[in-house]
């Protein structure tokens, strides 16, 4: 664990991502994304967290037949592969900007794909924020690491597993506290 700080390991991960794009196999990208996010949590590194959004977005794209069957897909695929290739040489400290660049890149190339990516990017942030929260970080800490939308995250967390696992019936205790307070 915690390898991605080294540029060699990041290159390996980028190669792995490129491989899945070439094979149009989205499923492994989800795991890659989670692994990067885990490292981002451990190292409290926002750039790594942003890096984790990329395989998640690509996973979603590669599992959408309507995008893969689009006449633009061939050229989009090449653009994405080139982008991932260029990422290998970038400094980790640039990853927030690089991922933002990726989101905006399709604005003029493929409007449909651009809006799809934009939506998935927001979803990815909430998903990863929930992942951080389940690792015991407060909402504020997860927001600072992921840039997720607070309101969307709060709605999402309502049904997160950790709420059921840690949650317990605390009513008697809370009622006693409140009644004593307002006495």
């Amino acid at each position, binding site marked *: 664990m915690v390898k991605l700080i080294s540029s060699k390991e990041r290159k390996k991960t980028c190669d792995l991502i490129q491989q899945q794009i070439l094979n149009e196999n989205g499923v492994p990208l989800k795991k890659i994304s989670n692994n990067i996010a885990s490292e981002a949590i451990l190292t409290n590194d926002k750039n790594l967290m942003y890096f984790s959004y990329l395989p998640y977005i690509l996973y979603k794209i590669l599992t959408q037949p309507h995008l893969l069957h689009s006449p633009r897909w061939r050229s989009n695929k090449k653009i994405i592969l080139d982008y991932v290739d260029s990422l290998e040489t970038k400094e980790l400290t640039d990853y927030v900007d690089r991922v933002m660049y990726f989101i905006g890149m399709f604005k003029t190339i493929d409007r449909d794909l651009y809006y799809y990516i934009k939506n998935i990017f927001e979803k990815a942030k909430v998903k990863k924020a929930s992942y951080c929260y*389940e690792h015991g970080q*407060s909402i504020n800490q997860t927001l600072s690491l992921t840039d997720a939308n607070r309101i969307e995250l709060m*709605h999402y967390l*309502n049904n997160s597993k950790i709420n059921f696992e840690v949650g317990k019936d605390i009513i008697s205790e809370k009622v006693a506290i409140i009644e004593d*307070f307002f006495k």
Partner: protein
Amino acid sequence: MKYIFFDSSSIISLTQTNMLFLLEKLKSKEIKFCISKAVYDEIILPGQENYQFGWSSEQIAACIESGLIEVLELEEKEQKDYDLVDEQVNSIFSTKFGPIQILQKGELETIILLKRFKEKKLFSIDELITREIIDDPRKLKDIVERRYKTQLFLDEKKLKQFVDYVSDIKVVRSVDLVAYSFGKNLFAKYSKKSEHLLKSLLYALKDSGCAVLHEEIDKYAAEPH
């Protein structure tokens, strides 16, 4: 004087469910509702940039403007306590890669401000993690430990120091405040079907992010307090 401090999660839940009016009804000469400056920044500033927050921020800003909610800032001498508690709580858990950051400015500032007052005080928090780190940090450790793919270490000394420090801070949730308000007939004008109404109110808060179990809502509805 008695104080209720809200963190962002709790005040946002009340705002999004149109229940801020309760503060007006619960307020008295001896009860003050407060937020820290950092919480203010968390809930008001994003509303100026983001339409999704805009309406909630406006409503909370109006409550501040009218004096219903007071914004408090740390005094210079409290900054030292802030730094100390920040270091303490954010290194209770660590992995071999370093300490795990759990709490941020909003929660930390509120904890320090709560310590300022010797009178009765409550901290209203809807999110689970911050609540648990004050209420039951050991249980939290057991749960999150399973999620880390590496060993999680607990600094017993720092945990004890933090637990002692926050021992006089009582934590509640928006659902607890609303269930209490319901028991005091503050929703009387809405419906006679009281059990249904109470459940609806509590589910609205749950949907807005308040960490409450279905069983707890059922229990509140079965025995309104």
